[in-house]
């Protein structure tokens, strides 16, 4: 590493760190503590709709009363009701299956782009990223158009004589998987493409020259080298899918809700803020390991490039 000229620690350099730091502490970190606190409160018909409320005027005595009034009741409630457990399991299942599907579709796509002629690559890359820029909600709505009972898919299937009766696509798990794969595909393709593109093709040629069949070269050379991209893509998809709300809500059934829907319902329909907070805390506990892993990976990546 080269020696850097005068890195000064004057006040305006500190400000560069301090301003975004304070913003994130205030609007990202502090809110989690509030969620944690409210998850230990009880619902009340009041404004705000929970008790106890910490009153700074109460002093030390007030604070002790406040702490004494907190309880783990909401967590006991979540653990005792099968609905919540089923919801968590469903979310993890959907996220795991979707991540595998995304890998199966995303890897060949990324591979195809990375092996395309050099001058086409930027255009192909752009074509994969472009749908990501158009509204997420609109893209899900596009699928509602296609998958509804008198939608385009059933018209085509009936015309081709594949089915006699128009099947219901909406409100099924199939529709949810289609929606998720469709929305998250760029997130899977981009990191995999980034690693494949950096790969030295001479390695594959060397393997071929030494008599290694292409599938073996893929398994022994290409796949291990692209593993960082595969892991990054999988995490980038898996974590948000577990908490996904819009896709299962618009395309899925109301039989078994994913946890994002359960939280939404607790909050907006049942107005039970403490239980919604407890659901969020448990969800966060489930995801904290993959999130920290992802963050470590990103940070290591950054350190390598510095």
């Amino acid at each position, binding site marked *: 590493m080269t020696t850097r000229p005068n890195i000064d620690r004057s006040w305006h350099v500190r400000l560069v760190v301090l301003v975004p*730091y304070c913003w994130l502490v205030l609007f990202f970190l502090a809110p989690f503590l509030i969620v944690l606190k409210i998850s230990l409160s009880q619902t009340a018909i009041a404004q705000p709709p929970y008790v106890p409320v910490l009153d700074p005027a109460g002093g030390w005595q007030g604070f002790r009363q406040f702490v004494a009034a907190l309880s783990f009741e909401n967590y006991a409630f979540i653990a005792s009701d099968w609905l919540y457990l089923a919801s968590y399991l469903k979310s993890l299942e959907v996220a795991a299956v979707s991540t595998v599907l995304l890998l199966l579709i995303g890897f060949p796509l990324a591979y195809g782009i990375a092996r395309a002629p050099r001058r086409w690559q930027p255009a192909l890359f752009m074509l994969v990223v472009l749908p990501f820029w158009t509204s997420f909600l609109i893209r899900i709505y596009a699928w509602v158009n296609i998958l509804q009972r008198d939608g385009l898919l059933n018209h085509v299937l009936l015309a081709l004589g594949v089915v006699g009766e128009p099947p219901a696509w909406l409100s099924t798990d199939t529709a949810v998987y289609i929606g998720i794969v469709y929305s998250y595909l760029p997130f899977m393709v981009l990191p995999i493409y980034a690693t494949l593109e950096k790969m030295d093709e001479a390695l594959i040629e060397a393997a071929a020259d030494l008599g290694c069949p292409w599938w073996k070269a893929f398994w022994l050379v290409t796949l291990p080298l692209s593993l960082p991209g595969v892991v990054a893509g999988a995490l980038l998809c898996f974590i948000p899918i577990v908490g996904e709300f819009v896709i299962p809500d618009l395309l899925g059934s109301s039989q078994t809700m994913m946890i994002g829907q359960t939280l939404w319902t607790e909050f907006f329909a049942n107005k039970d803020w403490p239980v919604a907070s407890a659901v969020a805390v448990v969800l966060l506990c489930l995801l904290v390991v993959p999130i920290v892993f992802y963050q470590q990976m990103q940070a290591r990546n950054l350190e390598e490039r510095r």
Partner: protein
Amino acid sequence: MRRTSLFNIGSVALGLAFLYLPIVILVIFSFNASRLVAVWGGWSTRWYVELINDTAMLESAWVTLRIAVLSATAATVLGTLAAIALARLGRFRTRVVFSGMIYAPLVMPEVITGLSLLLLFVAVDIDRGFWTVVIAHTTLTMCFVTVVVQSRLLSFDRSLEEAALNLGCPPFRTFLTVTLPLIAPALASGWMLAFTLSLDDLVVASFTTGPGATTLPIRIYSEIRLGVKPEINAISTIVIAIVGAGIVAASLLAKFHDLGRSRDARPAAP
């Protein structure tokens, strides 16, 4: 040796068809004269005319646009500062906490972010509405700006900055005259990314909004729940057109920028 096998062409073609077909169908059916979404009744701009007369929808579009511009601008400023801190300032205490707070929002489920911000606003007793959504979107999108800008900061030749500093240029001036022009394309794409993310967000906005600040996604979502309507196809087409035009303009701009730079850098090159 670069073989473009049939398998590679096939997987790229199928992948792109899968990505684009639904959008193309959506756009085509926004010009459908028939109210039935699956039955083609001839070309018509009827739904666009109805849209112009839908004041509630237009009001939402205007609110959404204002929120997106304000939050994208704030996110670009905050995100760029964070990127400089991560890429240039070396180790400082609690750096781990800082980088954690930058990367975690990228994958954090939106229901959690939305709920936690709402509970913060309630706890400090702020009236929910326009400004709370702006704050929420700034927080949500600034981390994306950081990732984009940071990647640019790490990829260009740092000796340019060091040369300026060695020649006695003050750090702040070096930043303005050397660093800023070099990272300008990243700032532009970071802003665009923040803008479209804000334009698009349903979940966080639903939690943090209040009376008088119904954003377009919230309105579209409540309409979709009632069923498919050609009018929604029309507004979707307009949103796609605006974002598409923005992207094309941005990439052309970046291309000219690069062309100009490479011409400056290598005047003798053929």
